[in-house]
């Protein structure tokens, strides 16, 4: 890999993650961790009419994991659940606008997995 992946946007989202913390009201929560590298992301979603109306995340991880989660929360706000459940690794790479080695790709996908897990949990309850 090259230094290209540590572009300003990624370092910025790593150092100043957006939507970091907890929702003001209790939402649908899902946690995913990657024990191999210690990435650990929890997503909190407020869902109304099959739309994500508010979102927060917290946890710890490498720059790629944290920046991915931050960018994903920005994207997910006001999106339909169906848009979010069809997202895959390509959509994450597009959000990050970088290429990642297979090992680092896992870091980028932890947050998406957490988001989709939360949506699945919500779906089961409606």
């Amino acid at each position, binding site marked *: *890999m*090259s*230094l290209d*992946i*540590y572009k300003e946007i990624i*370092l910025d989202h*790593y*150092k100043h993650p957006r939507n970091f913390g907890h929702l003001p009201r209790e939402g649908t929560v899902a946690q995913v961790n990657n024990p*191999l*590298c*210690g990435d650990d992301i929890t997503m909190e979603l407020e869902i109304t009419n099959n739309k994500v109306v508010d979102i927060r995340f917290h946890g*710890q*991880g*490498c*720059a*790629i994991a944290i920046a991915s989660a931050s960018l994903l929360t920005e994207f997910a706000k006001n999106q339909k659940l169906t848009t979010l459940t069809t997202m895959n690794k390509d959509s994450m790479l597009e959000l990050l606008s970088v290429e990642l080695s297979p090992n*680092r790709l896992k*870091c980028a996908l932890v947050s998406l997995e957490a988001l989709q897990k939360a949506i699945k949990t919500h779906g089961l309850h409606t």
Partner: protein
Amino acid sequence: MSLATELRKDFPILSNYPDMVYFDSTATSLKPRVVIDAISHYYTHLGANIHRGIYDLSEAATEAFEETRAVVADFINANVNEVLFTRGTTESINLLIHTIGEQLVQEGDEVATTLMEHHANFVPWQQLALRKKAAFKVVTVDENADLDMSSLKAPLQKKTKLFACTYVSNVSGIVNPIADIIKTVRAINPHTIIVIDAAQAVPHISIDVAAIDCDFLAFSAHKMCGPTGVGVLYGKKSHLQTMQPFMFGGDMIAQVAIEQSTFQEPPYRFEAGTPHISGIIAFKESIKYLNNITYKAIKKHEEMLMQVLISELRKQCGASLKIIGQHSVNPRVALAAMYAEGSHPHDLADILNADHICVRAGHHCAMPLHKHFNIPASTRASLYFYNTEDEVQRFAAAFSKALRMFI
């Protein structure tokens, strides 16, 4: 001229990647040409399976194979029939849980290890204890990452059947005072079986199993310039003779009838199936190679590298960089596992990779130790005799630059 300058010529991979800084020798060392040639020589000039082949090539292969056993025995000061070949340290230790562990440990007994272990010398004993409903005791470490000798006595009791301990930590590089530890354990219970993981010791320290008085000792060839897929288990003859085999087939068999089978004497009883013949034959070349350099010269060179590494890191990275075990009261081998709040080891290793610098990032198969110090992962630079002062300078500059991207 430093030791490394001349010796680097012996490593073809270093010529193939002249820009590479290889600081991951704790994971596996690079291999000198003599070892690579010996592997190739087996396939081009011997080729046959060992034992019981009534023809010249098989006899020559058997002789070359058994010669390594003699060289290994000499290398660790053991008897030749106390040396078992396995696929690596992990298999050596797993062999023990299925043989002496299975026979010895019963419900209500105790099995003990330490917080400093690689998972390969931790999980097998934990699993054995769980299966046998025995207590699993763990000797802790102090704030310097040294084994807490005062806590050693508490978990070790008369009913402690087995104690497993590493010689050198693969995270801190700390060299445990192993002979003293063994003496302490023997004083509490002379019958406790003592297993030493020497995987990280053999590359840097000359081993004498008679002097340290362990019951078993395990190590791998690939960390000491030998081939991958070759391991050694040393066991005291008196123990090996009471142990039942756990893998059956091939050379470990003496006689087979429909009702019953009998097995070879140790060490052959524990070597089922066709082994890694070329690797085991080539392994003796790595031992001869290291003996020829001498451990004294290796130690001297590594101490010089470590001094430069630590002082450059201090100078360039400042106090926010922590090195696990830096304040140890024991000697350390040439490695440093580091962490700094605000930076993640995977990012740092990725950035170093762009400068062709190979380091390891993660928990290095030592999750209990990382958890104890409350860090998810560390960046480990591990050096060997073929590394140079220039490489250390390059690493320190690149590492501090990477760190500054985050903190």
